[in-house]
């Protein structure tokens, strides 16, 4: 649809205010009407009212309060209508619901946003009954205040797909009768993991974007970091929240160095480290300090520790690979995955030489999960080349070239295979 500069000034102001206020408004409304889907629709009604009225009346002095009052009035209207309807049903003696309907007068008093509203909203939007994509779309929409069109652009999906995903997600939440609450006790850990997973998914979607991509994709990184900071402010005692914030800030600190002047990707060892964003590095270190209260550290904190090793190294050669290898070993224990093992193999080879790394990589070659994963032969080819086993290295690069779907990468790999053959 329209680019940001093609929208009118008032539209942009409405969008900005909406991003600042939508979570609190939708949160307070959900508490009022006891239904997440209805609350979301009422909040969208208030947004539409602002888009219609503000160009005529001007932006109100307290735009957030205006939106909240408008949304609240619509909620009260809705409740009145429902009450009249249920009163009529009662008169007819056909009333099925035994619980008295909420009284709008009481609700008005209770309509000011409260602390827990946003947190409950986050946990509802990230409920594990929903798929990860649905959770991400819903979170960006109701907590982040993004428009469906923006979410679609960011995820390279059709707008209708995202809209349907959100509608289905709201229905699923209603069907599962998901309580609007912050989970407590033993339930909290699992539910929090589901929230953190969504924030990191949003972040990675933006981080994977390259220079030529739509501006909306890198904006996802910033939004994920903002949501992470919001969550850290709401749950300061949860170490893994700080761990995830640290991980995102440390990774994002490299963004200015990740693309060269020609727009091509620059890998970590080749990055100009003077371009790393020092403020994000400092913030990442501070968040990591807060995350270290948990023992043993969780998977996000461990990954943040690894990112911190890179951030601390003034040059690629100065990287503390022994520590990184140990952190990957801890991560492999905490959150086992073949990809973590492969990273561990690389770290081990940097710390203790290519033979030690190859030992680990060879063990992974038997795993079915990695059969289609082209980075395994890339890593093995690399290690074999460093050991002087050039013909075997050439074969691995050739295999990797046949597996990758990226044309540019395939050319690079075929080139390396050729070079190894020439040396063997």
């Amino acid at each position, binding site marked *: 649809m329209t680019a940001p500069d093609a929208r009118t000034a008032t539209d942009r102001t409405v969008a900005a205010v909406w991003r600042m206020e939508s979570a609190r408004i939708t949160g307070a409304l959900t508490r009022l009407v006891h239904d997440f889907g209805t609350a979301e629709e009422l909040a969208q009604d208030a947004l539409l009212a602002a888009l219609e009225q503000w160009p005529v009346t001007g932006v109100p*002095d307290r735009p957030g309060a205006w939106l909240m009052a408008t949304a609240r009035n619509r909620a009260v209207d809705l409740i009145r209508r429902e009450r009249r309807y249920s009163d009529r049903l009662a008169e007819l003696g056909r009333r099925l619901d035994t619980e008295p309907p909420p009284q709008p007068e009481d609700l008005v008093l209770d309509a000011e946003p409260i602390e827990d509203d946003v947190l409950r909203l986050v946990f509802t939007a990230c409920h594990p009954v929903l798929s990860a994509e649905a959770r991400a779309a819903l979170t960006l929409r109701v907590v982040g205040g993004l428009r469906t069109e923006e979410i679609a652009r960011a995820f390279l999906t059709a707008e209708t797909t995202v809209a349907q995903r959100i509608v289905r997600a709201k229905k699923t939440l209603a069907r599962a009768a998901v309580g609007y609450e912050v989970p407590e006790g033993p339930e909290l850990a699992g539910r929090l993991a589901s929230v953190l997973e969504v924030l990191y998914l949003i972040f990675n979607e933006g981080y994977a974007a390259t220079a030529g991509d739509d501006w909306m994709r890198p904006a996802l990184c910033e939004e994920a970091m*903002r*949501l992470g900071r919001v969550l850290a402010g709401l749950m300061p005692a949860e170490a893994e929240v700080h761990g995830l914030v640290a991980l995102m800030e440390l990774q994002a600190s490299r963004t200015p160095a990740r693309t060269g002047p020609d727009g091509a990707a620059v890998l970590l060892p080749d990055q100009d480290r*003077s*371009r790393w964003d*020092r403020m994000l590095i400092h913030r990442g270190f*501070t968040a990591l300090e807060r995350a270290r209260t948990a023992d043993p550290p969780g998977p996000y904190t461990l990954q943040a520790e690894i990112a911190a090793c890179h951030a601390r190294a003034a040059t690629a050669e100065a990287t503390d690979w022994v520590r990184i290898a140990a952190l990957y070993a801890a991560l492999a224990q905490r959150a086992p995955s073949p990809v973590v093992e492969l990273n561990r193999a690389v770290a081990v080879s940097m710390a203790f030489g290519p033979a030690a790394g190859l030992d680990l990589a060879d063990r992974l070659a038997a795993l079915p999960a990695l059969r289609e994963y082209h980075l395994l032969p890339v890593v093995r080819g690399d290690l074999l080349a460093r050991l002087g086993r050039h013909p075997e290295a050439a074969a691995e690069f050739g295999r990797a070239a046949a597996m990758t779907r990226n044309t540019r990468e395939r050319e690079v790999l075929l080139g390396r295979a050729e070079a190894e053959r020439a040396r063997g």
Partner: protein
Amino acid sequence: MRFMMLVKATDDSEAGVLPTREMLEEMNRYNEELIKAGVLLAADGLQSSSHGFRVTYDGRGGSTVTDGPFTETKELLAGYWLIDVSSREEALEWARKVPFGAGETLEVRRVFDPTDFPEATAEMVEAEQAWRDANQRPIGG
């Protein structure tokens, strides 16, 4: 994108008049809101210019130092917020929310990104980073 919201000095801030308890509470509420929204990167208040000094340079390696206070109050600063937001409009809305009284002024400026200086050489950038490393402390730590 990052914006710096610069607080202009007033006769009171220059006279070293400290904010009242109510003003502090209101300001705390505003700061809380910035933190809760995940947009606050840094904020500080500055002491009156009588605690500061100015250095002017002659371009030949020499310089002159003038001690405060300085008289042109409207050009002086009394504090700042550094915020990270998604648009200029969002920076404007945050600025409008600042609980300031009559006559107080806020100047909002966009902060350069490291990538905004294509002319700077790698060494220049590196030297600046070294300075930042040595001098800038993380927020709250």
